[in-house]
């Protein structure tokens, strides 16, 4: 990506046991303005390889002097978050993409119900200042485990008063999603950011109750998780690309100079879609519909992998 912006890490602070916040300031140019719910893709040049992960901007969109992001340490994942937690120091320079937004609020909603799980609170940090300015009707329901996550819970609770609801599963307080949804008035739009299990639970509850699908919005960046190594064959050239256990298919293609358009690198935006000629797919994205996944003709190479040893891509 040639339009990357060079930023400097102005400060780092631990906002929860496993979450660090980074404040980024522009070096040469000004930072771009952004809208609530936007994210940037941060390039992390670790010794082994360059990771690129998407992180929601959590600063007030009205503040274009700095961007803030929060990174949760994902022990099980590959090195991206470990790099951010262990290598990045104040004064370091990083390359980030300009902001893009796949999760903006539906402003015509009568009421906004935000459901955050753990570090999934981040996009709502940029929603809230704008919602307050617009005097919108909203509630934030924040589910976390205080031994690991729960960033900003105290300041949010203080700032939002009766619009804030916290649930700490390390203290056995849980959110009854079905009950919560059943109380919502007509015209409510529901935004979910958090682990897939939360998104699924909300979607299922909504379906059972009879809430229309169009009022449910969710975002989960799946940082590519490792898997079994496999070979990707390029149909047009016959080229064989080895995808190691640690690399995503997109990264392996890029390493072989095969460029695939991409934006979020987290299985959300749909930019990187490739046609699969042969081979079974382990779908890990949020973009393709269930039907498309079942058809097995398309793959999102930024997060998804071969289910077997070989995959033939029609590119």
């Amino acid at each position, binding site marked *: 990506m040639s339009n990357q912006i060079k930023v400097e890490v102005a400060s780092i602070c631990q906002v929860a046991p496993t979450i660090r916040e980074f404040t980024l300031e522009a070096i040469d140019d000004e930072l771009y303005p952004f809208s609530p719910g936007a994210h940037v893709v941060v390039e992390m040049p670790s010794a082994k390889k360059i990771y690129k992960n998407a992180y929601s901007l959590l600063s007030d969109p009205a503040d274009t002097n700095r961007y803030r992001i929060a990174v949760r340490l994902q022990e099980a994942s590959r090195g991206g978050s470990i790099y951010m937690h262990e290598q990045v120091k104040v004064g370091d320079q990083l390359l980030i993409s300009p902001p893009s937004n796949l999760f903006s609020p539906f402003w015509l*909603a*009568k009421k906004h119900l935000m459901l955050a799980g753990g570090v999934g609170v981040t996009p709502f940090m940029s929603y809230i200042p704008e919602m307050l300015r617009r005097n919108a009707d909203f509630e934030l329901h924040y589910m976390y485990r205080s031994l690991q996550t729960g960033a900003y819970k105290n300041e949010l609770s203080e700032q939002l008063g009766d619009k804030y609801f916290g649930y700490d599963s390390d203290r056995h307080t849980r959110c009854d999603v079905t009950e919560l*949804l*059943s*109380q*919502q*008035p*007509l*015209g*409510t739009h529901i935004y979910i950011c958090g682990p897939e299990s939360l998104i699924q639970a909300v979607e299922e509850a909504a*379906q*059972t*109750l*009879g*809430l*229309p*699908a*169009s*009022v449910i919005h969710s975002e989960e960046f799946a940082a590519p998780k490792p898997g079994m190594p496999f070979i990707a064959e390029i149909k047009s050239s016959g080229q064989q690309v080895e995808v190691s256990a640690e690399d995503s298919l997109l990264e392996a293609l890029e390493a072989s100079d095969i460029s695939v358009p991409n934006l979020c690198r987290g299985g959300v935006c749909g930019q990187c879609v490739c046609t699969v000629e042969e081979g079974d797919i382990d779908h890990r994205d949020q973009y393709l519909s269930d039907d498309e996944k079942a058809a097995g003709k398309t793959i999102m190479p930024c997060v998804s992998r071969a289910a077997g040893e070989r995959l033939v891509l029609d590119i």
Partner: protein
Amino acid sequence: MEPESVSVVTSKPIYRSEISDAPCAYSLFICEQLSTAFSDLYQSKTVAKKDLVDDGDLDSVKDQSVRLLADAPAATLVYLSGTEKYMWLVGEQLKALGVTEDQMVMLPPLNTERSVFCCHCYTVTDHVVTAPATCAGCGKLLAVTDHFAKSHAAYFGYQVNAENATEIPESVELS
């Protein structure tokens, strides 16, 4: 000579006569004119709370919808019956109250009449059953397309014989 089509957009709504049993907590039934079929549909739905509005007047439907939907839950379904124009115009009013399109069930329209939007003078001509149709505003002879504008509840129309006003295409019945 057939005029060349300026628009190939086809967005004619598709209506289904069989109604699935979607769950919901409140159902509102709105019709232009109560038919037995619609009354049977209303009777057949078991739901915690339901209301029936039988009213052909848009303003009065609006007032009743505002009142009935004031405390409605997010899990609301609205069933609509009437002419195509009636259902979509009521639909527009409902959208302003927070009802989404996937919360509205529109039954097959009561007749094949179309409202046609004239792209020359912006007049909407109602009750069109054949094409070409004469615009009620400017009198031009309009080709009636399948390009449907939801918010106007009308089909896009354009002059069929702009090059040569003496050319009058054969009239066809609309479906």
